[in-house]
């Protein structure tokens, strides 16, 4: 980019800031951050599945997420991007209260799922995490058979009953389990590769297959939202392409939120992109087309174009 372009973008920031409540004297550092609140207002088509409002997260004294407000449209793919330590994974983990598992973590603010507050007292976390499932960076199948990886959750939740006791009580759901395993594996585009070895240990699968198995496991409990934290970062390009195709297909039925360090991946697969930058703040949120073609924030422009410092 030429100097004149730089100067022009800077002056656009200046123009925008003059309208804010707090007069800003320069365009550097915090002052620019003040200007960007208007860039996270995002009018998307359709309904919001999840809504975060004024979300702050602290890990001890570390203020990891600062006042994030963001609506996630249903049945679409929302990508969260930003440098390491920007708070994107922290934000993702707020959406199904995974941060509760970290003792030093403290969350302020509100997150609603279909309009209902998930941070209210007495909420059933097991039920929440069933509705808002999660897939992690490294595939983490249970050291069990492929079949058991899928049916473990539904059994735990009591959705299917198998075994001697169930048979004695006349509640044998073996057929339902078989159907569930097949459906979940098909949804995760893994069925064709494993249907003849469902009893094999899942750890014998390739990394890409293990990750699709984890997605199938997540789908087996019939979630509404799927959170993915860098689901393809440990995979080769072919396995990555399969996961990306899968994410695209899943968005027809599910609300997918994905954290990725791979900017091109965000550009390829997401409908909307939220950019977090260092300091735990959401800087810009909008249609993926707009973010990658014409970001409004100069800092986002610099980040996605690889112009650091």
């Amino acid at each position, binding site marked *: *980019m030429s100097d004149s372009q730089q100067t022009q973008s800077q002056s656009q920031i200046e123009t925008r800031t003059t309208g804010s409540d707090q007069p800003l004297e320069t365009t550097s550092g915090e002052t620019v951050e003040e200007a960007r609140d208007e860039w996270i207002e995002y009018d998307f088509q359709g309904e919001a599945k999840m809504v975060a409002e004024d979300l702050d997260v602290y890990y001890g004294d570390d203020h990891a997420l600062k006042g994030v407000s963001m609506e996630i449209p249903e049945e679409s793919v929302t990508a969260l991007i930003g440098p390491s330590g920007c708070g994107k994974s922290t934000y993702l983990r707020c959406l199904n209260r995974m941060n509760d598992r970290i003792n030093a973590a403290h969350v302020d603010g509100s997150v609603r799922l279909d309009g209902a507050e998930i941070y209210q007292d007495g909420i059933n976390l097991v039920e929440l995490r069933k509705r808002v499932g999660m897939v992690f960076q490294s595939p983490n199948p249970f050291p069990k058979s492929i079949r058991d990886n899928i049916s473990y959750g539904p059994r735990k939740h009591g959705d299917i009953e198998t075994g001697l006791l169930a048979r004695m009580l006349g509640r044998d759901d073996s057929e339902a389990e078989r159907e569930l395993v097949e459906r979940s594996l098909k949804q995760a585009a893994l069925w064709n590769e494993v249907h003849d070895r469902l009893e094999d240990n899942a750890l014998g699968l390739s990394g890409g297959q293990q990750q699709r198995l984890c997605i199938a496991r997540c789908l087996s409990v019939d979630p509404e939202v799927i959170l993915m934290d860098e689901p393809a970062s440990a995979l080769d390009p072919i396995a990555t392409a399969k996961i990306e195709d899968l994410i695209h297909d899943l968005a027809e039925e599910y609300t997918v939120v994905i954290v990725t360090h791979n900017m091109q991946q965000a*550009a390829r697969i997401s409908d909307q992109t939220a950019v977090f930058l260092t300091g735990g703040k959401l800087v810009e949120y909008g249609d993926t087309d707009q973010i*990658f073609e014409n970001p409004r924030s100069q800092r*986002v*422009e610099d980040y*996605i174009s690889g*112009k650091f410092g």
Partner: protein
Amino acid sequence: MTRDEYQQSLADLRADVLSMGELVQGRLDRALTALSTVDEAEARAVAGADDAVDRQYLDLESRCIQLFARQQPVASDLRFVASSFKILTDLERVGDLAVNLAQYTLAADRKRFEEVDLSAIGALAREMLDDAMVAYRTDDPDLCRSIADRDDELDTLCQRASERVVRDLIEREVDEGDSWAVEELLDDVSRLLLIVRDLERVGDHAVNIAARTLYMVESDPELV
């Protein structure tokens, strides 16, 4: 390629598109001068040397493709490479039109339709092209819009010139018994009408360059 090299390759691309612009502007200039001074030697020189433009065009086109493939530019970098990629094609076409103009100078009997002022049309088209390249060099959105505004003026000049040729043809007394003379006249008319259209096209390419530049600078597809 490191990020610094990438930034340098973007700067080089801009400099080389501008240099291709200068080459094409120079050729258009020479073709217009040859036309107005009826300088056949100069016209022949312009008509026979389009290779340099084509070579530069193909080189720059392949560099844009390489940048897309290897750097996946986004945001203003993306708009810059995409716009430059399109602008190259317009410049290459103007290079072809300069050749047409030179060939016309060699073939036409300019005494026949002296009242049709091709130099005024050519000057306006040339000015629009020059300004389009200035807008690209300086990221000037206002200049882009002013080029689009001037296109109406150019179109009017071209339309008037064409009408004048046709009216002149109707009013002209021709010895219909002299079939060779009739054929010569008709050839000259069609050549002149085509060259008027070519000059109008130079203006259209200038508008295209301005439109892509406006998109590049402001992400505004208004003129595209």
